[in-house]
Structures are given as structure tokens and as C-alpha cells.
């Protein structure tokens, strides 16, 4: 058996058999995310049902007693709403009344309602919404009550325009907007598709790569720390096997698990969103995003992503050698990754177009995090900065390779300790 597979099988056996590793890395996050998404999805569906259920019965006090108020009441009845008519209000507390009637929506039709409509003036219906549980669904009751009024208003409009002989389409949409999105020097007629496409390339793809790298780095550093905790590291260094092979196997296992991890969580995330939110079909992207972005963006992003992956793996290798135990492994990876995570999300929340060229240059040179900047820099016309960003990751990878090589092939692989001085104090 080759030394590579010998080490690989040992790694996999250790991971599969170590209950702490399995529980901490897979079972707990899977259960937590699954439960979280499940609960959120079920809760959202339940809230929607609650809104539908609670808006099926409404109370109305008709102070108008005119033809239009009666038409409103009849209209509600015709669309399946259970209407509880109140003759007069003897109770001073409206919430007690609504409680007693078992309704959460209460309409008050004022005395001049029919007169106003007859005179072609805008009429008003006041409504009260009883908030008790303060759940998400309850907050939707207001919209539901408003929707019933709007629906009736639309019904009236149709009647009037039919009577007056005015084209319905004209009344409904006397003015239409025709939207165009401009990116760089290109004009697009479907901005929502453009947005989705740019969002995919400038956020989702770098995010998935970034998350996977973070996971791989953390796993690789922890894996090497476990080697040291189990006191096998010193022995490993004296075995007839290339030291890069030892670390390479750990990285490979980390990459395999990282990809599986991202795939599983990505699947759960997609399942959750598809299950909970129904997007209008027209928002589905059907455009080629690289028709939207400047042509060179794909190359720069590709170079940047490849560089980021290589750099991330080498960073994992170097950091792992400094980890003495699992605790320091977590600290090291946190210290190294937290600023990068922060920087990665910066372009999501700030408008980099307003920043000075110097700041943009600095942002484009931040390792790993700069993959989130590349599409935006390219869209803004700073192709040279997008190129710097892409190439810089390759340069960082090369530097990391030199450092890793020097550490791995010298005694530093054994003596490197990140927290040595702190501990001595």
C-alpha cells in the first residue's frame, strides 16, 4: 500500500471513529441547521395559515347604513368572509369586544361612507387589528385587512369604469414604467435577472468558495492539532515518508469533508428556501452572467478563485503546524480568519464606487476576501484592480508555498509554536 493511501485510510478511520469529531463537525451542526430551518419553515407556514384563518372572520359596525356600505358587507360575504355585524358599541374597550366576538379584524364604516362614494370622493373605512400573540403571522393581519378593502375598491372601480365606458387597462395602468439597468456601458431590459446574475457571480460563488476554504482551514488546523495531542507528530516526522505527503493527506481529507460539508449545507439551504419561499418565475435567471459583466471578469474571477483556493490550502498547512492542541488550533484559525471574514462581507454593505482609488487598491489586495471584490471592481471599470486582485492571490499562494516549504523541510515543523511566548509568561 502506498504511504499516501496508508495515511489517508488512517485519517478517515480516525475521523469516522472519533465520536467527538463526528458529533462536533457533522451531527450537531446538521441537527441544528436542520431543526433551525425546519422550525423556521414550519413557523412561517403556520403564520401564513394563522393570517388566513384569522382574517376569515371580521366584525363590522356599519354607521353608514347606506347602499355602498351594504355592498361592502355583501362583497365580503361573497368572497367567503364571515361577517359579524355590530349594531352599536356599548363597550368602551374595543379589545374586549373583539375578544368576545372572537375576531382580530374590526371594520368601522363611517356615517358618510356611501355619500362620499356617491359624490365621487374617496371614502374611508377604519379598521382595528387586535395584536395578542405578537407573532410574525399576527403582524400580517393588518395587510390582510387592508387587502380586503383594496379588493372591494378594485371591485367598485371595475363597476364604475364599465358603467362609464372607459377602457379598463387605461384606468388600471394609465402610465407604465419601462425599466432599464445600466452596467458599465451595457443596457439591460430585465434588471431583476441582471441583479440575480450579478448576485450569483459577485456573492454566491465567492461566498461558497470562501466558506469552504474557512471550513477546510479550520479542519486542517484541528486535524494537525489532534496529531500533536495524540503525541504521534514526533514519530510521524521520523517515518520514511515525505513530510509534504503527511500534510497533503490531511489537506485532502479536509478538502473532501469541506466539499461534502458545503454540499450538504447548501442542499439544506436550497431545500429550505425552495420549501419556504415561492419566487415568481420571472425572477429566475436565464441570462448569461458573463454577458452582463465585462468579459475579462470571468478570467480575473477564475484566477482569483484558483489563487484563493491554493492560498487557502497553503495557509491551512502553515497554520496547522503552529497548532499545539485543539484549543490553540481554534484560536489560531479564529485569529487568522476573523479579519478575512469581516473583509469578505465589506463589499456587500458598502458602496465601493465612492471610495478613493487607493482604498480600492488596498481592498483588491486583501488575500482571500478580495474574491468578493473582483466582480464589483470589474463592473466599476477598474479592470486593472480586478486583475491585481486575481493575481495577488496567486502571489500570496506562491509566498505561502515558500514559507510552507521552509517550515516543512526544517526543524521548524517541530519547533513552531504560535503561543510559546504567551505561555511562558
Amino acid at each position, binding site marked *: *500500500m502506498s*504511504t499516501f493511501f*496508508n495515511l489517508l485510510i*488512517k485519517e478517515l*478511520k*480516525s475521523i469516522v*471513529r*472519533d465520536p467527538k469529531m463526528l458529533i462536533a463537525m457533522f451531527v450537531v451542526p446538521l441537527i441544528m441547521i436542520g431543526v433551525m430551518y425546519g422550525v423556521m419553515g414550519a413557523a412561517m407556514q403556520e403564520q401564513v395559515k394563522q393570517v388566513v384563518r384569522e382574517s376569515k372572520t371580521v366584525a363590522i359596525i356599519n354607521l353608514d347604513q347606506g347602499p355602498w356600505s351594504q355592498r361592502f358587507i355583501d362583497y365580503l360575504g361573497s368572497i367567503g368572509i364571515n361577517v359579524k355585524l355590530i349594531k352599536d358599541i356599548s363597550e368602551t374597550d374595543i379589545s374586549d369586544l373583539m375578544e368576545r366576538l372572537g375576531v382580530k379584524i374590526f371594520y368601522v364604516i363611517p356615517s358618510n361612507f356611501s355619500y362620499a362614494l356617491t359624490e365621487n370622493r374617496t371614502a374611508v373605512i377604519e379598521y382595528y387589528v387586535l395584536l395578542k400573540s405578537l407573532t410574525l403571522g399576527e403582524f400580517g393581519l393588518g395587510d390582510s385587512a387592508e387587502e380586503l378593502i383594496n379588493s372591494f375598491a378594485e371591485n367598485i372601480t371595475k363597476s364604475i369604469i364599465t358603467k362609464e365606458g372607459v377602457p379598463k387597462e387605461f384606468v388600471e395602468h394609465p402610465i407604465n414604467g419601462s425599466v432599464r439597468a445600466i452596467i458599465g456601458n451595457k443596457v439591460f431590459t430585465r434588471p431583476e435577472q441582471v441583479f440575480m446574475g450579478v448576485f450569483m457571480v459577485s456573492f454566491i460563488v465567492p461566498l461558497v468558495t470562501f466558506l469552504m476554504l474557512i471550513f477546510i482551514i479550520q479542519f486542517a488546523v484541528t486535524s494537525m492539532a489532534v496529531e500533536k495531542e*495524540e*503525541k*504521534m507528530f*514526533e*514519530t510521524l*516526522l*521520523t*517515518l*520514511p*515518508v*515525505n513530510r509534504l505527503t503527511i500534510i497533503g493527506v490531511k489537506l485532502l481529507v479536509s478538502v473532501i469533508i469541506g466539499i461534502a460539508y458545503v454540499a450538504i449545507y447548501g442542499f439544506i439551504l436550497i431545500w429550505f428556501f425552495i420549501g419556504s419561499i415561492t419566487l415568481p418565475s420571472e425572477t429566475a435567471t436565464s441570462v448569461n452572467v458573463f454577458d452582463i459583466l465585462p468579459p475579462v471578469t470571468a478570467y480575473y474571477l477564475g484566477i482569483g478563485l484558483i489563487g484563493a483556493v491554493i492560498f487557502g490550502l497553503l495557509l491551512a498547512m502553515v497554520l496547522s503546524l503552529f497548532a499545539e492542541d485543539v484549543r490553540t488550533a481554534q484560536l489560531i484559525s479564529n485569529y487568522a480568519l476573523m479579519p478575512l471574514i469581516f473583509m469578505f462581507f465589506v463589499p456587500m454593505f458598502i458602496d465601493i464606487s465612492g471610495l478613493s482609488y487607493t482604498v480600492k487598491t488596498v481592498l483588491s489586495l486583501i488575500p482571500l476576501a478580495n474574491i468578493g471584490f473582483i466582480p464589483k471592481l470589474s463592473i466599476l471599470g477598474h479592470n486593472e484592480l480586478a486583475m491585481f486582485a486575481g493575481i495577488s492571490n496567486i502571489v500570496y499562494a506562491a509566498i505561502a508555498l515558500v514559507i510552507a516549504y521552509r517550515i516543512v523541510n*526544517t*526543524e521548524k515543523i*517541530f*519547533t513552531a509554536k504560535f503561543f510559546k511566548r504567551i505561555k511562558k509568561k
Partner: protein
Amino acid sequence: MSECIIETRDLVKIYPGGVKGVDGASFCVKKGEIFGLIGPNGAGKTTTLRILATILQPTSGQAYVAGYDVVKQASMVRKVISYLPEDAGAYKYLTGLEFLEFIANFYARNEDEKIRIIREGVALSGLGDRLRDKIKTYSKGMLRRLLVAKTLMIRPTLAILDEPTSGLDVVNAVMVRDAIRKYAYEKGVTILLSSHNMLEVEYMCDRIAIIHKGRIIAEGSPRQLIEEHGVENLEEVFVKLVGGGVR
């Protein structure tokens, strides 16, 4: 140099911060002998062994194992040595047998050789059916016997054992010593071990070197050193040479 499996010349190791781990150590270990490196804590025993095991690199001087330079030909040295660190562990979620197989896979050239190596490991460890249990269930003595077995079973040209019986109870220490001695003589394996147990060294070693403050201050067979210094045992030789200078 041809007679020596290990030869060091003016070996110096200075750690970052200026601390001297080894300060001009020179000695020779001949083929097939059990050689003991003895000295007080901090004398430089472990540093010397780590240099010979290619983990550390000397600041100056030379060290050769089986004729290979430990710095320039480190990968060749690793093919002929087998090293047991003082506080070595093993993969606790593997069984003892799987661990022996894991080590054997690095050295065996074919399946038959692998089986032969594992069989020797099984015999050396003396752990019997417990080898099928996960290592995390082993006592300290059992773990050390397993580690000694994995070190010797591959029949290395040179086995380097750092405090092989450290922390063991009497029964386990005796078992480990006997296994090392028997195997070394039967298979012709050269052994370099460190210890600060004088009785152990006197019992096991053909020759010894006393290291103090990174320097070899005496070298020879235990009997020869005892006679030279006109004392009763190796402990007295050690005290006479090192005296109150233990750091």
C-alpha cells in the same frame, strides 16, 4: 566511520534564545550494540536523539547514521532508523493491530513482508487479544509495550529509544527491557537509548556515554567505567562525574 552506525563529531545545538542543548558531543555507536546515553534532566539526551532522528538540525558539527548525514541525507536516515520518543502516543481510535499495520505499511515492500513485520510486532508487544481493542482502552504500560513493538518490529538498522521505560511500573518496565534486549541480540539491531535509570542502563547496555551540560564526559562499557572510577556501580560513577553540577 565504517564501524560506527552512529558517529557524531562536535555536535552543537543552540536553541533560539541562546540555550545550548548540546555542546560539542562526539561519540560512536557500533553495529549491533545497545548503547546508552545517560545524564541528568536537561543534559542534552533528548536533543541528541532528536538530531539523530532528523527532527532537529544541529547548529554545528556532524552526525551520521549508517553513513548518512542526518542533515543532508535526512530522508535516507529515516529509512534506516526507528524512533520512539519519550512521551509518544498512538492513534487512540485505531486498534493495536491496526496501528502496527499502519507502521508496517511504511516499511514493507510486499504483503508477505508486511505480515512478517506485524507478526513480530504482535509477539514483541505481548498484548495478545487486546491488540484487537482500541488503543484508547490501553493502560500506560500496554501503550508503551505497543510502541516499543512498533519501533523494533521493522528490524531497523538503528532503533532510537528515548527513555523506553519512563513512567512504567516494575512489571511493565522489566517486560519492555527484556523485549528490547532479546530482540536486539536476536536480530542484530543496533539500539541507542537514553535513560536516567542507572540500573536499567547497567543491565541493558553494552556501552554507555554520560552526557552532562551537552558534553560527553565519559564513554565505555558499564563495567569499564565502574572499574576506572573505583566505585561499586554505575550510579556512583554518575554521581562522581556529575556531582552537584546537575542543572
